């Protein structure tokens, strides 16, 4: 099988691309819509928005979530906000500027026409959410409030306190539940997708396992939409929720969907460092803290005095020293790497030496405690709850943590993967953020894909299937897929090893974080590529999954996810190894400027690297989609 990476975006002026696409696309008439069955996997922002919008159009939709309720998806944890080019602040924002900022922020590794469409529909998202009753922050006059965010010089971020993701998800969830009430969406909670079913090269259904009863079920449809989020949990410790995983996307990859730019992962600079070996996840503290906090470490690595007792001249405010122009406000990737450099050279603080200080004493002196409390009170409280230290008294300790995956399933302009009929939306696809995502853009992309892109684009595929029934679940392709899932379940239950799934997940995470984390180099990546298959072999033979299939069995749920993480991890390392440049979240130590900044190689690497599956244990084959920049000028980012 050979993969063709054609974006399919209409040519001509970029401003007209989306209009042209919508006009040229064949429509499905309302009577025919109800004859099409669509399977939506995942009910986060992208999934819930897509399922609700498609059902409103008249399609028959089945929505699947492995949670007990669609409202638990990890979109709910997004704090900061959502971008939109409304220009309500009259400060010079425009669709073009949002487009420009996003391409540049992504370090020029995203497809221009997709990003332009994202910026265009961003304004509709805010309208839609407000109509649903999302309680965005307001000015006293009753109009919407905005704030500014990293990587932009305008105020275009809409927010609902520190819970924007929660409120947007509840909006999409309520729209979804309305359709469930109307009978246009059938909801399958506690159903985890374990395989994509294909027939004659087209996606025709999925296999799910019911997490309550263990029953392995077939569902058929004319198209399958994967809205299953990102894969940062490959690092074990990340800011993602415990259950976030790559399994749905990975199973699709194994059925022929190319996986694009897997090494583009984002590390968020301000998280609370791990406190012990059993730490299960890392907690993010909003980036806004860097507006008033000063980041430092003691000059002397052996200085073990409490922070307050280290005199001013013996502190190294390393961001202010290295980046006098931007200081503590340099972008995420740069702040993260600088902190890593300090910790690696032994300057780390805290009991485990795994953090740097974020100090508010100067801000408290300058503004008074009351103002600081007003700005950051809820974050300080959250920090104190976790660490038992008050940031009013002693500096916070922070350290970077994996946070978001820019890479994902390759999709064309219509969000279709390389498997006809199989779509990927939201964080699960690779499309809009290039090598680095700007703050407040993840929510925007998930909702854009779900509310405003897929309802149009799916029609262009379905219109070719008019009059055809979905492949019945009695077809042998379903029996075959079900048998393979069942035998996998049996395999894990009969392994009878000695170590828990978490034990192996932690070991996997250590290898990934050390070699494919914030900074990568050839030696480390090659080492990881050798070590991962060995550890995976050990895992497959010695993991212990107790209990049975026919009831709630959380080890059984986890074991398949970790197995897929192993294969993904290896691909991430291969991708990072082949990409001989530094860009955005991907920093190769061999490729940096004299000042230690990322050095892109546009001549050789201005492309999307999409990998084609070639069987277990076989290295995937790389395909390239060249990226053309007709509108945004390629420049080196500088923050000195």
């Amino acid at each position, binding site marked *: 099988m050979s993969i063709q990476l054609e974006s399919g975006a209409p040519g001509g002026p970029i401003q007209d691309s989306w209009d042209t696409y919508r006009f040229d696309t064949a429509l499905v008439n309302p009577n025919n819509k109800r004859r099409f069955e669509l399977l939506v996997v995942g009910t986060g922002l992208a999934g819930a*928005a897509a399922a609700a*919008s498609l059902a*409103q159009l008249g399609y028959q939709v089945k929505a699947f979530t492995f*949670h007990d*309720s669609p409202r*638990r998806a*990890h979109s*709910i*944890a997004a704090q900061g906000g959502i971008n939109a080019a409304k220009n*309500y602040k009259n400060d010079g924002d425009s669709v073009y500027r949002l487009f420009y900022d996003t391409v540049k922020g992504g370090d020029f590794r995203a497809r221009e026409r997709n990003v332009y469409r994202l910026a265009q529909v961003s304004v*509709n998202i805010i*309208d839609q959410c*407000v*109509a*649903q*009753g999302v*309680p*965005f922050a*307001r000015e006293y*006059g*009753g*109009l*919407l409030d905005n704030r500014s965010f990293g990587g932009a010089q305008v105020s275009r971020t809409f927010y609902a*306190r520190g819970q924007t993701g*929660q*409120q947007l998800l*509840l909006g999409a*969830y*309520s*729209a979804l*539940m*309305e359709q*469930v*009430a109307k009978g246009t969406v059938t909801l399958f*909670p506690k159903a985890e997708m374990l395989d994509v079913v294909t027939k004659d090269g087209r996606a025709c259904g999925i296999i799910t396992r019911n997490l309550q009863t263990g029953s392995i079920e077939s569902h058929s449809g004319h198209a399958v939409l994967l809205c299953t989020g990102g894969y940062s949990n490959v690092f074990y410790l990340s800011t993602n*929720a*415990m259950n976030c995983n790559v399994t749905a996307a990975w199973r699709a990859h194994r059925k022929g969907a190319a996986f694009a730019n897997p090494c583009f992962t984002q590390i968020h600079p301000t998280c609370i460092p791990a*406190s*012990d070996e*059993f*730490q*299960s996840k890392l*907690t993010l503290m909003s980036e806004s803290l860097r507006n008033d906090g000063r980041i430092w470490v003691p000059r002397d690595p052996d200085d073990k005095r409490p922070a307050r007792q280290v005199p001013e001249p013996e502190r190294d405010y390393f961001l202010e020293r290295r980046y006098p122009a931007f200081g503590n406000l340099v972008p995420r990737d740069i702040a993260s790497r600088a902190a890593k450099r300090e910790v690696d050279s032994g300057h780390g603080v805290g009991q485990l030496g795994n953090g740097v200080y974020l100090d508010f004493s100067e801000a408290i002196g300058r503004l008074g405690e009351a103002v600081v409390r007003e700005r950051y009170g809820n974050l300080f409280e*959250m920090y104190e*709850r*976790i660490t*038992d230290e008050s940031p009013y008294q002693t500096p916070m300790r922070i350290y970077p943590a994996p946070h978001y995956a820019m890479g994902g399933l390759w999709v064309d302009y219509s969000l279709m993967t390389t498997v006809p009929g199989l779509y990927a939306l939201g964080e699960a696809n690779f499309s809009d953020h290039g090598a680095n995502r700007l703050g407040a853009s993840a929510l925007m992309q998930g909702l854009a894909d779900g*509310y*405003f892109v897929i*309802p149009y684009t799916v029609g262009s595929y379905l219109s070719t299937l008019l009059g055809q029934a979905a492949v019945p679940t009695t077809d042998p392709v379903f029996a075959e897929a079900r048998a393979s899932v069942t035998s996998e379940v049996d395999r894990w239950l009969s392994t009878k090893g*000695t170590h*828990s799934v978490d*034990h192996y997940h932690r070991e996997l995470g250590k290898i990934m974080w050390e070699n494919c984390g914030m900074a990568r180099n050839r030696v480390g990546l090659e080492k990881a590529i050798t070590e991962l298959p060995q550890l995976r072999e050990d895992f497959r033979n010695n993991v*212990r999954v*107790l209990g049975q299939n026919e*009831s*709630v*069995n*959380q*080890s059984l749920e986890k074991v398949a996810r970790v197995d897929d993480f192993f294969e993904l991890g290896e691909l991430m390392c291969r991708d990072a190894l082949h990409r001989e440049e530094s860009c955005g979240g991907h920093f190769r130590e061999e490729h940096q400027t004299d000042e230690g900044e990322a050095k892109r190689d546009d001549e050789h690497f201005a492309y999307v690297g999409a990998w084609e599956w070639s069987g277990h244990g076989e290295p995937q084959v790389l395909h390239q989609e060249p990226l053309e920049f007709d509108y945004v000028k390629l420049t080196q980012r500088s923050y000195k």
Partner: protein
Amino acid sequence: MNVTVRVWRQEDAGSAGRFETHQLDDISADMSFLEMLDVLNERLIEAGREPVAFDSDCREGICGTCGLMINGQAHGPAEATATCQLHMRKFSEGDTITIEPWRAAAFPIMRDLIVDRSPLDAVIEAGGFISADTGGAPDANLIPVPKTVSDAAMDAAACIGCGACVAACPNSAGQLFTSAKLAHLNLVPQGQAQRWERTIDMVETMEAFFGSCTNYGECEKACPKGISIDFIAYMNRDFVKAKMKNRKLIGQKFP
């Protein structure tokens, strides 16, 4: 630190449950409560025994997936704190900690500490939405919402749907959850068109699953987001009003 946990074990909704006691040595006081349970599970697995099933996801207090009765208190001893944000330093050396699932007739136990909270979704399905099909919305700033109204709606909308209010209530009432969801939508201008119909639908669905409210106030105390019981009063008032305003229903559906 060293603690003893008495943890509820139950195969499924149909089986009888029991407490199991485990001694846990060398627990770090900096661990979260759920990490303590992770350690317990790790040790159980190493010993060849099935781990304790419990729900959790975001582990930062926002998804509402986790929820345990800890020493008889929903989400444990810390105020306005979800189970996942509770840390072991809130306990003392040598403590015995009793861990149970949410106990309510509406929430059958699925296994060990996991319960089925789907009635909360049923309440939303009944009317917890503003009908606004994708695409037809007017410009967002065409609908001004006074800041005080928007703030009050947000206070209600902060509910994470964990079900602690039901578990804490001696009557297993679902009033705090339902009223928070209802108030969010009934307060804002966008929600007015369906206000009275929504109120009837949500309240009556709630009553089909949950017990009655007798103003104990335990729900507010247990709520990890500090949702105020004032919203219950608001819902009751809207329910009475709805009975008057839904004229088309008077003498018909509700004689």
